[in-house]
């Protein structure tokens, strides 16, 4: 065999690993019924591919080859271990007596297996931080170190979360299946929540020096695309649209010096048109499906902003109308706050301030930075300098991010000159 052939085989194996290792893993988990066994089988299968493909050429269906090789390797491994641990004999026998998967059905099963894996990793019976870690590890293929780095924590912490989650999956028998129709809204909600958490962690880092950790946002968008491809539900489209529309403004939301730039002050020529087009198209598609959910509505609002050539030409009436529906679909104080900001733009600062004060008077959002900075901004526009200063100071006391801190300090200096 020439070195050339070996080199080409290695390149093919590497490429298949990048494009298909998660799919192969998802199917192996189903066939073997165990995460750790499936991961081991995956590595054994790729090791075997490296050896055999350079000798015999790349098989016609590499993915199916990897699945069946992985399955045999796992049975071998269990057989070997069963000699020392009798309790494994039963598992080995069960695996051997199950017929190998039919290659024709495999293509379809592989699609379902990816979805099964997503639903398993985002099962609401697992703690939320474990759902995030497990999804990034198993569905996206990030290493424990990469996940730990993205969440500013230590690899052993992430590893422990994943191990505990896998233990619960095994002990409580969380099944490897796509939820039935009646359970789908709750279960899909849990999946979308995880994807959006990952996106937001990348988009608004909750602490630290940098405002943006784009790798996580990119990973969330990839997940969102996968989900829309596998399960074209309106809210999955809405969420992907929302993430793309936010992402389109990434370059415009911070100055070269790392300062935060508000939507109204952003240089709109920096917005990425192709992401806006894709995001808006997804919103339109989701809207025609007539089941309006919070992600679709938020995406529709983001799309209205994206359509305005300048901040001054924003269609605030349409934005307020969308918020009116959103408040009904998702009656959260934060949504009411955002609606108040839109009302202020449509009807003037006093109208918005009245709503924010009512929310705060009710005892909601008292510790929420953006409630105080929004209030401060409206007071500033009304010329109520003392009130504006107090609210900026309250917001400043709640911030944990350097760019936000600098932004609020700049605003405080500005009103002192008013």
């Amino acid at each position, binding site marked *: 065999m020439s070195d050339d052939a070996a080199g080409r085989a290695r390149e093919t194996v590497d490429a298949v690993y990048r494009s298909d290792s998660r799919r192969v893993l998802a199917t192996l988990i189903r066939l073997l019924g165990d995460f750790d066994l499936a991961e081991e089988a995956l590595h054994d299968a790729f090791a075997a591919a490296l050896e055999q493909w350079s000798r015999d050429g790349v098989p016609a269906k590499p993915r199916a080859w990897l699945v069946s090789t992985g399955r045999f390797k796992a049975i071998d491994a269990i057989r070997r271990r069963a000699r020392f641990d009798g309790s494994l004999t039963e598992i080995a026998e069960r695996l051997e007596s199950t017929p190998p998967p039919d290659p024709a059905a495999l293509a379809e099963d592989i699609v379902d297996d990816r979805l099964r894996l997503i639903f398993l990793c985002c099962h609401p*019976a697992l703690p939320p931080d474990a759902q995030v870690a497990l999804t990034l590890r198993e569905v996206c293929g990030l290493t424990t170190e990469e996940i730990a780095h993205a969440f500013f924590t230590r690899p052993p912490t992430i590893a422990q979360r994943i191990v505990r989650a896998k233990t619960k999956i095994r*002990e*409580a*028998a969380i*099944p490897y299946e796509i939820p039935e129709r009646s359970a789908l809204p709750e279960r899909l909600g849990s999946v979308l929540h995880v994807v959006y958490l990952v996106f937001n962690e990348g988009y608004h880092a909750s602490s630290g020096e940098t405002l943006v950790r784009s790798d996580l946002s990119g990973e969330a968008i990839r997940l969102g695309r996968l989900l829309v491809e596998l399960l074209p539900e309106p809210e999955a489209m809405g969420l992907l649209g929302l993430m793309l529309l936010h992402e389109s403004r990434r370059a415009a939301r911070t100055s070269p010096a790392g300062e935060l730039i508000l939507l109204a002050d952003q240089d709109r020529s920096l917005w990425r048109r192709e992401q806006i087009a894709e995001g808006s198209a997804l919103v339109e598609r989701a809207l025609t499906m007539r089941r309006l959910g919070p992600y679709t509505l938020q995406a529709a609002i983001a799309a209205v902003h994206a359509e305005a050539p300048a901040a001054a030409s924003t269609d605030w009436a349409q934005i307020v109308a969308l918020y009116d529906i959103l408040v009904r679909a998702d009656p959260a104080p934060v949504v009411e706050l955002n609606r108040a900001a839109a009302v202020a733009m449509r009807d003037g600062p006093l109208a918005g301030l009245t709503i924010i004060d009512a929310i705060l008077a009710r005892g909601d959002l008292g510790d929420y930075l953006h409630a105080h900075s929004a209030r401060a901004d409206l007071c500033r526009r009304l010329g109520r300098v003392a009130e504006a200063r107090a609210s900026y100071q309250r917001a400043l006391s709640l911030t944990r991010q350097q760019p936000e801190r600098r932004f609020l300090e700049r605003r405080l200096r500005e009103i002192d000159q008013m």
Partner: protein
Amino acid sequence: MKYLCLIYSDESQWPKLPQAETETMLKEYGAFGESIKASGHWVAGHRLHPTSSASTVRIRNGKLSTTDGPFAETKEQLGGFYMIEAKDLNEAIQIGSRIPGAKHGSIEVRPVWEVPAPVA
């Protein structure tokens, strides 16, 4: 798989329920019990007397101590349980969600530790 569904609720509310509501609740429990017996999910199930009737027993340094009351004071108390047979956690959650107590209290679903049968 067997799962134990533990029914927690604020037992102090029980005596305050109007007669009609208590009767409705008991009827709902009766219907639920019948339905999971008919579907083959039922293994066992009982309502418990309130925690005022509980005693907690411990042996420390070989000495028996018995105290009055439940082992921990909680806002919601264990008021009953079902042991069910379900194929996996999703089915157990689905059955647990149909327990009438889920509407006002909470149902804790716990897998039972099953000892594998000895290999003959």
